[in-house]
């Protein structure tokens, strides 16, 4: 379970996030929409432990994970994250990229997991290629496989389909839907309402650092 209490973040005196409060049960699938600069990425980074909050707390499964001045190390949070760009490590093959997060597994176990992910993310035959030898769509799938490899409790996806053509987007969306079934909790950040509706049970909106759990209010105000 994710519990966020009074979470705020400022950059150079400007509020990026303002007193965010929510709780997400294990297994929930939530989309967060909002225009550029509304604080979507900042929220994900705070949940992942890549940023320190200026105020408030993040609890994961009842354990304090972040407060001002302290965070639990990102790798101890059991969180997977897919960034806006695939961010694959260019000096590693796809297999090495995927295996990086499961270095503690026994070799045979890691191999089984790799094959599972290659199959579920339609990457078979590409495992020995380097990121510069694959297409943009394949790179996105590989980024998803890498994030899923260590069986994360929570998967954060930060506009993973940005800059893709419509057909590729549709294919990847279906793949994300299939592949993230095993994930306990999904938070999916997007501009696109269709993506959000296809993948998630709930859709929240962020506007100027404030979270709206019922975007209908914003629609009525003409802000959505």
């Amino acid at each position, binding site marked *: 379970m994710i519990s966020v209490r009074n979470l705020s973040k400022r950059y150079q005196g400007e509020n990026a996030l303002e007193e965010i409060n929510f709780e997400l049960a294990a297994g929930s699938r939530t989309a967060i929409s909002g225009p550029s600069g509304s604080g979507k990425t900042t929220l994900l980074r705070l949940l992942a432990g*890549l*940023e320190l909050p200026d105020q408030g707390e993040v609890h994961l499964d009842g354990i304090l994970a972040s407060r001002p001045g302290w965070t639990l*190390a*990102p790798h101890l*949070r059991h969180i997977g*994250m897919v960034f806006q760009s695939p*961010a694959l*490590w*260019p000096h590693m093959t796809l297999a090495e990229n995927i295996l990086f997060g499961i270095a503690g597994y026994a070799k045979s176990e890691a191999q089984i997991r790799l094959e599972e992910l290659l199959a579920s993310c339609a990457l078979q035959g590409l495992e020995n290629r380097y990121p510069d030898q694959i297409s943009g769509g394949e790179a996105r799938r590989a980024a998803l496989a890498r*994030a899923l490899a260590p069986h994360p409790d929570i998967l954060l996806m930060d506009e993973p389909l940005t800059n893709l053509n419509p057909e590729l987007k549709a294919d990847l969306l279906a793949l994300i839907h299939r592949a993230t079934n095993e994930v306990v909790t999904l938070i999916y950040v997007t501009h696109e309402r269709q993506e959000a509706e296809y993948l998630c049970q709930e859709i929240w909106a962020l506007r100027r650092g404030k979270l709206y759990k019922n975007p209908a209010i914003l629609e009525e105000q003409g802000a959505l």
Partner: protein
Amino acid sequence: MESKSTKALKQILLAGYAFLVSGPLLALFWNLAGAIFEHTISYADLLALFSARKLILLLNSLALAGSVAITGMVLGVIAASALWVKDFRLARILRWLLLATVVLPPYLHVLTWTSLFDRINLFLAAQDMPELPFGGWLGSWWVQSIAFLPIAVLVSQAGFDLVGKELVEAARLQRPDPAVLKKIALPLAAPLVLAAGGLLFLLSLMDYSIPYIFGKNVYALDIFADFSAHNQPGLALLNALPLALIALPVVLLTLGGIRTLAISAQRADRQWAVSPRWPGWLRGTQIIVVLILVIAALAPLVTLIRMSGSPGDLANSLANGSQESLYTLSTALLAGLICLPFALAAAQALANAGRANPFWWLLTLSCLALPPALVGIGQIALWNHPLLQGVYGHTPIVILTDIARFTPLAAVLLASQERRSDPLLRDAARLFQKNPAHGWLRVRLPLLGSGLLAAASIVTVLSAGELAATLIVIPPGQATLTLRIYNFLHYGSPEAVAGLSLFLVLVVLLGSLITLTLFEKRSSLLRIPVKILK
């Protein structure tokens, strides 16, 4: 499209650049060909090149350069990993200090570290403890490593900075920070870490000033000594060939890294929102290395201030060296100004050169890798002609030597700025300008202004500290500040050496700070040339 006259001017300046930086080398080859044709180089001379003494010298030089490069790389990576954190104030101050001290003449560090070790040994002797060995090869290794360490740290750190932030963060989500450093950051920064090692290897291989002060002979010094004995430039070239043959592959290996660093359009994002968690042993090592860096950066200044004696002593030293100071500053300043148009033309060629066309990069880096003494000898070979006596044996040859040595560096610096400037601004100027001169003066010059000033400053600063080539070309009756200091290091009073060195250090630090300010804060300075032109 550029006008024909602009194109022609660029070609002329580019040819001028090639002549100024590679002319001395070409003159040496010409001289060698003549010497072979006229049989002025004997078989005995040729056989002497393969003597056991030369081989031992070469091996000693390689061992010293190799150990300096390895030390620099190891310390550089550790220090860079310490500085590659959340952008806290100490890291920023240290980065500036390193940048400012990177151009200090290496031999000034001898004075600092000898004095420091003397004090430590005095203390140890008072405690009846054994003294620390310092001198000879050990002293040469340590002082060269420390003198060149800022370069290793800055280049390695640039390597870390160029690793994409998301690549690091994606790894941090899956593995602890030490694994991220080892498996992701270090392999991705490796080309620049190796380039730093290559640079240090070359700098150590070409420097004879430090080993000479510690009483050790290296191959680079032998080139100078042989030339002094035989006065045959062609033979000096032959003599330098083993060094050049070793340096060339290192230059080629370093080329990729330096090119990436210079022309990378990516601005480093040093902000770590959450500082990395290093294990205790790494944190301890980082603290020790950062302390060494702080000492290396501050020690020259502090030691020289202490050694220069009372204000009266300092005033006396400066008064005694005033003629040399004036001569040094004027020649260095002229070199810094004259090199600019040539460096700018070369910078454009460097910035536009693709990987398939590395000619200008090869020429530039090869010239930077020439032994300084050989550049000086090459200048003599080039200008020692009855019709060119206005240059040879007079001040212009000193200026031309500085230009030959440091214009390639100015070109790399300007190429870096050229690459980072928005090409659309140039295209817009071409569309709206009344004529090429109008576009150049109102748009190009303001955009380039700070880079040009920075390039001029760096060439001036390095020229002010140049020793090895100046020693060969200095006209009779003249001396630069560095020559006087170097001579004083052997037989002068410590106060006199310290006083003059302090002056040189202050000039160098001031010049570097101006360079850095201009290069880093160029956006706010863009409007100044426009205001002047208005």
